[in-house]
């Protein structure tokens, strides 16, 4: 699964996610990616998210919508992302990761899997990582 989220100078946001799904899945299996609130979610009044990982768990736990609910309750982007993916792993099992931008431009990146590759450009600097706490 790959994803890209963005915010422009007027605060308009977008969430994009694309995937081949799960290796060895049954033909006809629908995962989390195409479902708003699970694989991705976006609301200019709150923030934007793209999620990845064990699709059945993300789908059942509504990971992206939960991140926006934490943001709406005033939690910062990093903490909201971490709470949702860790909450999913604890509640329904499986591993996940997500990237988040809050409406104020605050960025959140968290995952319960071993790794998740990510990158963003802020100002003229390129930030990227793949291991926990990078």
């Amino acid at each position, binding site marked *: *699964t*790959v994803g*890209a*989220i*963005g*915010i*422009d*100078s*007027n605060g*308009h*946001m*977008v*969430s*994009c*996610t*694309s*995937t*081949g*799904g*799960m*290796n*060895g*899945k*049954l*033909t006809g*299996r629908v995962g989390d*990616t*195409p479902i*708003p609130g699970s*694989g*991705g979610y*976006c*609301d*200019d009044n709150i923030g*934007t998210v793209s999620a*990845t*990982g*064990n*699709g059945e768990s993300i789908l059942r736990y509504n990971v992206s919508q939960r991140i926006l609910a934490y943001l709406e309750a005033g939690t910062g982007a990093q903490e909201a992302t971490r709470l949702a993916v860790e909450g999913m792993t604890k509640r329904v099992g*499986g*591993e996940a*990761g997500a*990237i*988040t*931008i809050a409406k104020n*431009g605050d*960025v959140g*990146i968290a995952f319960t*899997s*071993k*790794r*998740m*590759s*990510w*990158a*963003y*450009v*802020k100002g003229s600097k390129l930030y*990227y990582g*793949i291991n926990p706490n990078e």
Partner: protein
Amino acid sequence: MIEPIIVVHGGAGNYTYADISRCLRGVRAAAIKGHQVVQSGGSILDATVAAVEVMEADPEFNAGKGSVLTVDGKVQMEALVMEGEHMKVGSVTGITNVAHPISVAKLVMDLPHSILGFESATAFAHQNGIPFVPDEELITPASLQALENFKNKKISSAATEIPG
């Protein structure tokens, strides 16, 4: 005024050491592409779609070319685009024979529907000018090997081995 920003991810999962540098190169290229589109006046929608297209074209990632396979060796892809002003959604599931599912999802966003699935999603794409891409251009040796490993139970479960 908010500073525009595009954040990308290349999937959560185990990644072998061999994958790490190739995946980091891919996500850096995607983030730079998205940033360039914004810098040159493109919309945030065009920028995020362009960033995902970079990764869909990169066989390193589980999306587009290099997608993992169904148990009978087929590619069935999914994608979601959602914009935050009117909360419009464009989504496809089970789509085949296209290089960029995210671009088809973007077309669906302009329909009075939100999600199109399977052969109808594929037909909609080709009827709207998205080129047909044969399966063999989407299937890679790595995805065939991953399916083989899964079938031979060399890996515990599908979800843990392939990022995303």
